[in-house]
């Protein structure tokens, strides 16, 4: 089973975060669907598996899946599990630059608060580009 988990996302729940766990999960899963990391028809883990892995109540994960279904991101079928819908919403192409600027501004703001010099800020971005995952359609990490 050494190839299981390859390229599959990992969800993180912070129990100390004031945001309730179901909402933390909902946001992460919504991001993964909208960004295309979870492709159309891809199956989400069963409720009980995710609840067990995260130490959460099954009802908490069920609420997350319900809200994702209400938002039109996933569909649940009896016996067929929960899957990403066939045509999930995506990021509009004309908004890409705008979104990148928003995220870059947020990152730079945090880096400045840490007192990081500009070179270190840029180095961190370059390093992230070489080690980060590549979303579908992107050029992906530079070859090493």
């Amino acid at each position, binding site marked *: 089973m050494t190839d299981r988990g390859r390229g599959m996302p990992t969800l993180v729940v912070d129990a100390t975060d004031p945001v309730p766990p179901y909402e933390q999960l909902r946001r992460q*899963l919504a991001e993964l669907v909208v960004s295309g990391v979870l492709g159309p028809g891809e199956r989400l883990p069963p409720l009980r598996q995710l609840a067990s892995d995260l130490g959460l109540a099954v009802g908490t994960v069920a609420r997350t899946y319900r809200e994702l279904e209400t938002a039109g991101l996933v569909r649940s079928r009896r016996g067929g599990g929960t899957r990403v819908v066939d045509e999930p919403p995506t990021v509009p192409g004309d908004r890409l630059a705008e979104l990148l600027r928003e995220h870059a501004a947020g990152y730079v703001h945090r880096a400045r608060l840490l007192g990081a010099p500009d070179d270190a800020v840029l180095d961190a971005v370059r390093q992230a580009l070489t080690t980060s995952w590549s979303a579908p359609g992107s050029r992906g990490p530079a070859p090493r």
Partner: protein
Amino acid sequence: MSLGLVVVVAGLVVGVGAVIALVLALVPTRAAGEAVPVRVRRRLVVWRWVGAGLGVAAAVTASATGALGRGLMLAVPLFGLFLVLGVLAGELSVSAPSGPTRRASLDPRRLGDYLPRALTAAVVTATAALAGLLVTTTLLGSPDDLGRNGRWLSARCGMDGSEGHGPWPGSYYAVPLAAVVILGLVAVAVTLHRVVRRPRPGDPVALAASDDLLRRRAARVAVGGWGVLVTIPLVGISVVAGAGLRAVSCGPDWWDTLAGVTTALVPVWVVVLIWSASTVVLTRPVVATGGAADGSTVGAGTSGGVIPGAGGPGGTGAEVNTPGAGR
């Protein structure tokens, strides 16, 4: 086959098995990523041994106390049942994460990923054969001379004569055996469910490979225990039933056919028995190669979410495991 020959063959099988087990113990299975924590692996092994120990105790007790061979018949199935329960206890000992930060992979785990398919098919077949045989022997059984129902096989010969043979594996033996087998099946089902559903004992990416090996091993032992539980009585009842059907000379013709089939299948069930037992006994230690299991894990949500409107909570977010990175 004389008793001496049986002992020699059994000793040979055990000896060869011990040598193979020793060799396999020296040839570890390599798993990418980190190893499952020692305390978790130790608990899994300890519970398995506790189950095996209790199984031996139950088998000895049953064989010493059961009357008219019933205890002897139930001894090995009880061992198999407790072995499976030991696996279940080990899997239950892996507790859910309780720290402030918890991670989970989105990769769905399926029973088919861990189940030994060929062995499972063989054991399911043996179980169906045992069920069919027990129903048949129960329907054919009649009370013995002391009125114990289902311990005698009799056939009417001519107008006013009859012929019989015993002991016969009818309801007197089939009912308690069926009860143990059903308990065993329930235990196996619950164990396999737990093998798939239990949480990962640590980082879901780094531990994935070695944890999956442990789950696969647990499933193999559970199915192997199920196989032992079923095939030992299947072999015994096939031999006794075949001999009983042949011993009654005036039974219907299909009794001879049934006797031939049950006897002919005995070697098949013996093979399934050896296969099951070897799956329980022969295991290889897991050695983690260290480093990233499938690549690096990179946080994506620390800036408040990638996609506006879907944004993640501060400080948490989906992380994506990158194939090939970090190697």
